[in-house]
């Protein structure tokens, strides 16, 4: 009888182990709507973005660390990176304010930054930036290398996020300030061919991160009351269903979902804003130029 019980227990354990879905990787999700800083406009749907994205990745079998508002800090992101499975893909998603700094301010170098909670304080009359709480794309890359993370995908739904996409190998057909109304349309093949060889002969280095950015380096990113999400995030969520699986192989890669989001933003958001003469709200997403692409989702999990 004891043997029978032991064998039954073993079979049950094996059955449980077999039916457990494989953890595909780690998703670290940050969304900041409420900054609680005088002089900084709060956002409306970034926390909703974070919750929806966290649910999406959890449903797809990722281990998720999700932080909203006052928990969405750089320290929490770095702590979650330390906890991530280093052998599997690590996805970092951020929704909140983005900053393009033109000149050195409060000791912060010019460049592009994500602004997690606590990025600044307002002791009286003006903002004081805290660089240690701000997040440049290089900060994530340095931390990832330090932790020996080789597979890291950064998704940023914030203003000027195209600045995080440092395309040094290839040339994107989408300009950093896309606006067809003002003649800043997609770059032609001939222009791309004129630029691409120069990149080949001057490039050196290796890009660890794959970056999907909601907007160009000169563009703002927008939320929509109709979607109750950021526009980019809305189409990202919708593409994670079967919609973005363009080659119908059952998997959605970073490239496929990027193209899907770009097409949707142009077809629905940009055409509407253009018809309403809000040309400053026309924008397109950007992606980094790695040779690799990652399988993010199963089309029918």
């Amino acid at each position: 009888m004891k043997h029978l019980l032991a064998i039954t227990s073993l079979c049950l354990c094996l059955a449980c182990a077999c039916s457990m879905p494989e953890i595909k990787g780690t998703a670290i999700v940050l969304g900041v709507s409420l900054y609680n800083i005088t002089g900084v406009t709060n956002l409306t749907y970034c926390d909703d973005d974070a919750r929806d994205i966290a649910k999406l990745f959890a449903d797809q079998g990722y281990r998720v660390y999700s932080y909203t508002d006052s928990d969405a800090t750089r320290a929490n992101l770095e702590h979650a990176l330390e906890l991530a499975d280093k052998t599997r893909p690590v996805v970092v998603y951020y929704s909140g304010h983005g900053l393009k700094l033109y000149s050195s301010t409060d000791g912060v170098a010019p460049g592009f930054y994500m602004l997690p909670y606590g990025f600044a304080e307002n002791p009286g009359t003006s903002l004081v930036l805290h660089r240690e709480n701000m997040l440049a794309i290089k900060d994530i890359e340095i931390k990832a290398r330090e932790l020996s993370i080789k597979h890291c995908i950064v998704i940023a739904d914030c203003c000027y996020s195209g600045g995080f996409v440092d395309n040094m190998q290839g040339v994107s057909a989408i300009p950093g300030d896309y606006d067809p109304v003002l003649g800043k349309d997609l770059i032609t093949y001939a222009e791309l061919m004129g630029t691409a060889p120069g990149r080949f002969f001057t490039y050196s280095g290796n890009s660890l991160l794959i970056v999907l950015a909601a907007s160009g380096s000169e563009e703002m990113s927008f939320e929509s009351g109709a979607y109750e999400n950021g526009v980019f995030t809305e189409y990202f969520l919708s593409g994670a269903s079967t919609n973005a699986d363009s080659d119908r192989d059952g998997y959605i890669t970073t490239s496929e979902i990027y193209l899907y989001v770009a097409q949707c933003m142009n077809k629905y958001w940009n055409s509407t804003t253009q018809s309403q003469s809000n040309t400053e709200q026309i924008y397109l997403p950007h992606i980094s130029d790695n040779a690799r692409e990652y399988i993010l989702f199963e089309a029918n999990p």
Partner: protein
Amino acid sequence: MICVPVSVSSQEFLYEPGIVSLSIAGSALPLVSFETEYALLSQFMVEGELGIHIGNNVGGSIAAHAGLALPSLPARELYRYKGFEYYGAGIGVFLRQYPLSAWYFEYSLQAFADFSWQPETLMMYFFISLVPEIICTPKMLNWETLSFQGALRFPIHFHENFYSFGIGFTVRLLITPFAKVKLL
């Protein structure tokens, strides 16, 4: 001038291919690709090529090709190398050898400057490829101004941070408009 004996109806002929020849080729290319610090993964390409070859037993070539690279097989860590279309032009050298056997051989080396276009990321890249090739013509498929050839090619693609190499299987139609056949 090259003089190649051609067997037709048990008689011996001299085959002179002429100084200019044109080729149309199609290739299937199983390759392995890798990015620095990442895994070696297999990838498949198909390619079409047009060439003009000047010279008899030694000469030079000018060629244009276009191809399609499918995405690689995925790695265990859920990544793969992207697929792309590519277009390029190149130059090369060749050496033709006509042994007195049932097969003629040609050896060539071409270097191409290529542009690859990734339709899913709307991005263009430049890369360089080297293509050593061994071309074989069975006598039975060699007519006066036309011959069908088979080839093995060993392409090496140098992207900025990404490399591919492998073996290609090529079928080639060689047109030799100035060829002559003389009865021995």
